């Protein structure tokens, strides 16, 4: 059932079993899991079914560190940011969950093995019809993995969600569920706890049209996204002055992204046919379970990461163009600028040709056609070191509801840049040792990294999980430390960010939380 919050009588108090704040990937995944469970669920969404600029404006804020787009990187209506999700899915690596002595603040309170069953379920929720994230034999019709040398770089696979627009796809499930009421256009302005700050008592709600009402839940899940989760806890400060769950000052800290670098390197290969087609583009494969869209990528393997004490990087690539054996004739006419550009391009091609012909003189064989080889375009995303100084706080500016806006102070560290550079150098060794490729590392060595070339729109780490309340905001059950009935869902839980896209993992964690909540409600019903 859907209810327009703007039409709720002023001052209404809605009593419920579970309140879920936010109808994005995590919130909808949890609500669906609880459909038909007998637990009354109230799903509270700021937006309606479509994009609305006024509601979206609630996401505006200040970016005072590495420049970051707080508004365009997320969407505030039913379905949340899945409304513009690209669909890239891949589980995190087992090493991502480990405490790594070279990565400060690393270590999840759960293992990859504990999350595996939920990854399976998350795959279904995200409509991915194959489990072969690591199994190259499943994709061998498209070719084999590159036999890269050195054992430092491995081929792995992204599998793509259609992408599932959670709002569109699962709206009927929410509508049909008799135990779920979804309030649209309803903004939680504060999670109000009991006097001692240990239990959620009610949620204060306000619409942009000015209607105020509240929800009194037995338990509450905060699922408003990786930035807003922290903001919501910080805004909930009428009892706990530093915000809920923030007695150790961790809420909002450790903001991480996946810095993207559009052209961190140039790859040259002698023969494009050596590079399996699924590396080069999104590739549709017909399987008995249905169509799967997949793509090969390169990841640094865990033995390498342990030895070099680096953070991870994921690399994708696509063909760019051929490099002929014979130089093309330079442009003789045109403006000075055009001729200069043509000359620069010819010089660059000369280098490409020189490198390819050198490879063909040593580890490869002479060109059999007029092509010296191929240039591949390269893209990458990197893991960031968790950094308490990279954080979300509240701005002095206010939004349309009168609430302090978000202030983001995103930091990138030298170690982030060093890892990326080192990993690209490892890829260069891997290609060279293979013999049919060479790599130009364009990402420079940096003393500091103050401006991001790109990002993934992935907001990670601001309500991190940790068994120890001094190291995290929530425990292994995603329950806010020091509070009995407040839980968090979403990528803000991640203590470390891995290198790959977060949606599959945040959905897996949400499904795991759903199971926990079902058990919890079953136990309390048994007690009652």
């Amino acid at each position, binding site marked *: 059932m859907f209810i327009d919050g703007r039409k709720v009588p002023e001052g209404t108090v809605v009593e419920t079993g579970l309140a879920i704040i936010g109808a994005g990937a995590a919130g909808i995944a949890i609500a669906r899991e609880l459909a038909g469970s007998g637990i009354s669920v109230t799903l509270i969404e700021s937006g309606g079914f479509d994009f609305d600029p006024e509601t979206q404006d609630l996401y505006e804020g200040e970016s005072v560190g590495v420049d970051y787009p707080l508004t365009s990187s997320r969407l505030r209506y039913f379905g949340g940011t899945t409304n513009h999700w690209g669909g890239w899915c891949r589980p995190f690596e087992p090493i991502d969950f480990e405490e790594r002595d070279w990565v400060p603040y690393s270590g999840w309170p759960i293992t990859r093995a504990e999350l595996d069953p939920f990854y399976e379920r998350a795959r279904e929720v995200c409509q991915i019809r194959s489990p072969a994230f690591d199994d190259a034999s499943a994709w061998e019709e498209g070719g084999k993995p590159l036999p890269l040398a050195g054992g430092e770089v491995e081929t792995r696979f992204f599998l793509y969600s259609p992408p599932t627009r959670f709002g569109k796809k699962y709206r009927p499930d929410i509508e049909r569920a008799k135990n779920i009421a979804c309030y649209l256009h309803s903004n939680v302005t504060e999670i109000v706890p009991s006097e001692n700050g240990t239990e959620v008592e009610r949620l204060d709600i306000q619409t942009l049209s000015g209607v105020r009402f509240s929800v009194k839940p037995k338990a509450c899940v905060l699922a408003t996204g990786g930035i807003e989760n922290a903001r919501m806890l910080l805004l909930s400060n009428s009892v706990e002055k530093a915000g809920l769950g923030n007695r150790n000052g961790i809420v909002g800290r450790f903001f991480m992204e996946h810095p993207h670098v559009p052209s961190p390197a140039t790859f040259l290969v002698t023969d494009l046919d050596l590079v399996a087609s699924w590396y080069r583009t999104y590739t549709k494969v017909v399987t008995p379970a249905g169509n799967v869209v997949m793509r090969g990528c390169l990841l640094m393997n865990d033995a390498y990461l342990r030895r070099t004490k680096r953070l991870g990087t994921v690399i994708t690539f696509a063909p760019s163009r051929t490099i002929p054996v014979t130089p093309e004739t330079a442009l003789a006419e045109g403006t000075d600028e055009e001729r200069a550009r043509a000359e620069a391009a010819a010089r660059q091609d000369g*280098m490409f040709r020189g490198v390819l012909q050198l490879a063909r003189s*040593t580890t490869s064989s002479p060109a059999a056609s007029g092509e010296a080889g191929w240039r591949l375009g390269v893209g990458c995303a990197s893991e960031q070191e968790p950094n308490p100084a990279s954080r979300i706080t509240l701005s002095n500016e206010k939004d349309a509801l009168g609430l302090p806006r978000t202030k983001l102070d995103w930091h990138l560290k030298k170690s982030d840049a060093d890892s990326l550079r080192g990993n690209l150098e490892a890829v260069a060794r891997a290609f060279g040792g293979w013999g049919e490729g060479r790599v130009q590392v364009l990402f420079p060595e940096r003393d500091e990294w103050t401006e991001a070339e790109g990002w993934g729109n992935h907001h990670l780490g601001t309500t991190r999980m940790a068994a120890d309340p001094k190291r995290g905001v929530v425990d292994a059950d995603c329950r806010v430390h020091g509070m009995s009935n407040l839980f968090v869902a979403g990528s803000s839980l991640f203590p470390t960010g891995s290198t790959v896209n977060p949606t599959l993992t945040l959905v897996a964690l949400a499904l795991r939380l759903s199971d926990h909540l079902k058990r919890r409600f079953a136990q309390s019903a048994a007690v009652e």
Partner: protein
Amino acid sequence: MEHEEHQSTEHHGAAHREGVSRRTLLVLAGTAIVAAAIPSALFLAEPETASGRAAGFVRLLADPESAARLGEVWFEKSAPGETLAIYEARLSRTLDSHGWREGMDEAETHRRLAQAVRADYAANRITVIDEWHLSETEANLAALAALVARKSPAHGEEEDHG
């Protein structure tokens, strides 16, 4: 990085290029540590023989001209030294360590060269030329190609006969 022994004799520009090979060989011949690592034939060789070997190495290249340009870029950006005999010696030493012997046929020489290059990548013996991460052996080949090209009649310079 290894192979630093040549640096002190270099960076003297074109005026010093001619005749450097012979002097460098004498310096090398007097240095026992270095001598142990360099093929004995080199010390007995007259410069003409050395140039012959250099030319032989350059003949291994699919495109000596483009390799020479790569070598020139290396010289320009990193000033690694421009003494032909040094590069020739390095390549001889590298190939020797992979079982190459003078007179081996071209296919076998190529096989040893490929081994040497792969071994460089495996051992992180990398030379960066214009951000390209190439094996040291490859870089030495490119440098040699550049220096041989400079001495070719087409380049307008005299042959170096010592």
